[in-house]
């Protein structure tokens, strides 16, 4: 094979084939998906007046996503639920249904992940909610050993400030187990920084608790 133009053509078309077949065609097929109602009517149109899913996330959750990105959480945590019967994702309660393409259309950076050193987080907001959820996440992020002894997740204490307790304890202060080896010294309290607060809001907002026409919760 010594003819440069011919060789070059072959090399070009080899990559052009997958570029078209995978990248361009998937962009055509699913690159313009938008949120839709949980069910469609008989003609395949969205139902009037019904909520469109997935939901937009609030600003603070988006700031929290930036913290998630900066900390490289994706390298241990995935955000995708496999279908029933393929792996134990649904059995483990990581979600009620498989995640599909439309679940990610509002995400500016999609963080599917490919490692599960830690559990999947696609629906972590469905497992930890409200103030109880916030409390758990803050203790867990400060030092995972507090609520998950033996975990290999690293501590993120640098996302928290340790400060002298003023006239009264801050309402945001983390409440440690009594005499915990991870707690602050006598007279000190640990409060989350803005980044920790935002990160926890992001985690509370990760939910796949709605159906889609192509993925109905059984």
């Amino acid at each position, binding site marked *: 094979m010594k003819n440069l133009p011919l060789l070059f053509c072959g090399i070009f078309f080899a990559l052009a084939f997958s570029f078209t077949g995978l990248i361009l065609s998937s962009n055509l097929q699913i690159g313009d998906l938008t949120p839709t109602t949980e069910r469609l009517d008989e003609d395949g149109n969205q139902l009037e007046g019904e909520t469109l899913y997935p939901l937009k996330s609030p600003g603070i959750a988006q700031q929290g996503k930036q913290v998630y990105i900066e*900390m490289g959480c994706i390298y241990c945590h995935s955000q995708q639920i496999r279908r029933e019967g393929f792996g134990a994702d649904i*059995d483990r309660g990581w979600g009620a249904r498989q995640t599909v393409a439309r679940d990610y259309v509002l995400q500016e950076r*999609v963080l599917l992940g*490919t490692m599960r050193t830690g559990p999947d987080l696609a629906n972590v907001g469905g497992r930890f909610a409200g103030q109880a959820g916030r409390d758990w996440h803050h203790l867990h992020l400060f030092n995972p050993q507090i609520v998950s002894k033996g975990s290999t997740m690293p*501590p*993120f204490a*640098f996302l928290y400030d340790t400060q002298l307790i003023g006239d009264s304890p801050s309402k945001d202060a983390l409440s440690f187990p009594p005499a915990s080896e991870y707690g602050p010294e006598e007279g000190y309290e640990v409060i989350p920084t803005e980044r920790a607060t935002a990160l926890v809001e992001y985690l509370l907002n990760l939910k796949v608790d709605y159906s889609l026409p192509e993925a109905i919760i059984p």
Partner: protein
Amino acid sequence: MSQAPQSIKPAETLYSSPNEAVRAELSAIDASIRSAALFFVITAISWLMIGTVFALIAAFKAHTPDFLGGTEWFTFGRVRSIHLNAMALGWATNIIFAVGLWIMARLCRSEIQHKGLLLIAGVFWNIGLTVGIFGIFFGDITSVEWLEIPTYATPLLAVSYSLIGVWGILAFRFRKGEHVYVSQWYILAALFWFPWLYIVAQFMILWFPVRGVVQSVTNWWFAHNVLGLWFTPMALATAYYLIPKVLGRPIYSYYLSVLGFWALALFYNWAGIHHLIGGPIPVWLISAGIVASVMMVIPVIVVGVNHHMSVVWMHKEVWRSPTLRFVVFGAISYTLVSLIGSAMALRSVNEITHFTHFTVGHAHHGVYAFFTMIMFGGVYYMMPRLLKREWPSAGLIKLHFWGCAIGITIMIVALQVGGWIQGLEMNNAEIPFLEVVQNTVPWLQARSVSGLFLTVGHIAFAINFFWMLFAAGAVRAKQGPTLLVETSEEGAA
């Protein structure tokens, strides 16, 4: 088979035989590429050492999370990403620039022109990478796998790369001689494919992000093709050059070479979707990726047969020559890692291995046991020809080989056995997740041990290299090359 040194002829009759003429031409080509190749080898080895340090840190953190756990700069996600990029763009790409371009120059029988341009591009490549690595360290990591380098550094990388790539393509365009050898196809193809992959990925994921999971499809088309269309062709080109060169025997079959090349070109770039099996993308994409991954068995077997039949009955030579020990280790690993990879793409296997340490073991099997070992072989062959000296210490070469061979074997076994168990347990919802994690710890500790072996090998390599580079007087081109087994006959270099 060398004889006693021939006496140097007077200048009027330059060459006493066609053999001498060819060798003189090769020597001229080597001299013309020397400064560029040396630059790239030095930067490659430097990044290898940096990447090794961060690998050790990441490995220890995985089972001892408090290790360096106090600052966000050393948090696991960033440390691991620095390791990956230092190795992929630092070690691997620089060594490709060194060895791959040297082989291309030799085979094209063209002395390189505009060497200054090549060096400048190389300097900018390494500056861009350094800026990018610091960017990751300080938190500008993108969290896009294999594209962690922040966007303020990537244009510099794209431009430097393109310059270097253009140089390689021009060398091919102005080649001498009728025949085009298989290594030249692979190098030419890789030089063309990589910028296309990189620029598309940068645009569609980071600069003008496409919507939703199309980012993921693009991401894994890109990332897998860094392995399949950049590292693999360059390593195969190197093996295809060195095996027949050192043994003095032709490659078994031209037809197998052609079949292997085009099958790789056709199938490999569709396989990347296997990173998303079970994921939130339409199933046809996934099935296409699976089929392509399994079809890769064809070029892999073909290359395996070609290499094996070229080496058969010459095991003693392989064992004696540092170059061939590393290259053949790599070539065998290629067959093994690819067959395992094809198996991993099957849904029933993937159900267990996906998301586990098995995949990490597989990745290192490919990038280290295959690609890196072959490139080590390339360095061992190339350096004496560039510096006109021999390697100072056979002992250090042996330490290098054994450190790496033992290290990578422990790593692959530990991660894949541990990862398989992890996968099985993860698929059993009755086992608490925390227990699954704790069961991986002994395997991760074994991985850290393997890292120590690899580090010893790399240090031996670096010492030998810099000794050869700087102590010019101490090491001369002796009567024979630095071989790993004492023997009375002269022979392979």
